[in-house]
């Protein structure tokens, strides 16, 4: 996918968030020397290309009381990992779900599903739901609770430096 220089300018102007006013796109457009309609059209194209997933809010899990987060990991039969991954991802309490390579012999797990909850007990109960959904196709599983955030930075487009 190639982004035009104008796309990069638009992304840089909006990745920290939109101004919270009644016409946010008009404010951003003015700062970029575009019309409101031009900016909205371009954003629609970026959305059609999959560069923009949605326009909305990112809730702060921690401030909303969801302080427990467990990375559940599973060793799932390769023949069915993708179809089961779709089902796990669709569970309402799974925030990320990926297939990743195993790192044998230390790490036999190929399916990762992140679960958030208010308590560890809640996360453990949700993990049991994933386990029953996976059934016999799953050979082993584990859960890794995060005990400390060691670093957290926004993932920013670094077009200007590169």
């Amino acid at each position: 996918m190639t982004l035009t220089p104008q796309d990069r300018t638009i992304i840089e102007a909006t990745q920290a968030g939109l101004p919270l006013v009644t016409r946010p796109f008009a404010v951003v457009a003015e700062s970029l020397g575009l019309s409101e309609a031009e900016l909205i059209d371009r954003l629609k194209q970026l959305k059609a290309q999959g560069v923009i997933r949605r326009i909305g809010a990112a809730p702060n899990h921690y401030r909303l009381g969801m302080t427990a987060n467990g990375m559940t990991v599973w060793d799932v039969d390769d023949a069915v990992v993708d179809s089961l991954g779709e089902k796990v991802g669709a569970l309402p309490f799974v925030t990320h779900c990926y297939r990743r390579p195993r790192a044998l012999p230390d790490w036999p797990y190929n399916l990762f599903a992140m679960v958030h909850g208010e308590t560890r007990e809640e996360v453990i109960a949700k993990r049991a739901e994933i386990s029953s959904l996976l059934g016999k196709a799953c050979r082993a599983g584990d859960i890794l609770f995060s005990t400390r955030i060691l670093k957290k930075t926004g993932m920013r487009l670094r077009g200007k430096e590169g």
Partner: protein
Amino acid sequence: MTRKLSPLERTLINRLQDDLPLVPHPFQELAQELGLSEEELAGHIRTLRDDGLLTRFGPFFDAEALGGAFCLCAIAVPPERFEDVLTKVNAYPEVAHNYERDHKLNMWFVLATESQAAISATAEAIERDTGLPVLLFPKEREFFIGFRVNA
């Protein structure tokens, strides 16, 4: 840390996770539904953001579609060396976030670089710096997520 949310704030946190329309007045429809003016709705969202209940409001970009490369990595750090290794790993600007987890593999971080080649190069540099193997867990497939926070 957490403050009590009003019923309106709960509704807003739930509804604002939906996709808003790309139109000149993106808040109009939701404001009407909730019996608010657009200005009032924007003001409530500002408050939620300023109070840290929302981290941001705006477009969500697909990080890979933006042209970067990303990789989840893990290191089994001997407990007595944890702080020393942490300082070394976090010194890399390519380390976007890093979590301690309760496992033998106790340090999990995401590398964010401009290219795939830079992922391997950075992981190798961290191995040299720390003397510890860095396991790479690149995303092979991402599954659709139906998740929403229910406030």
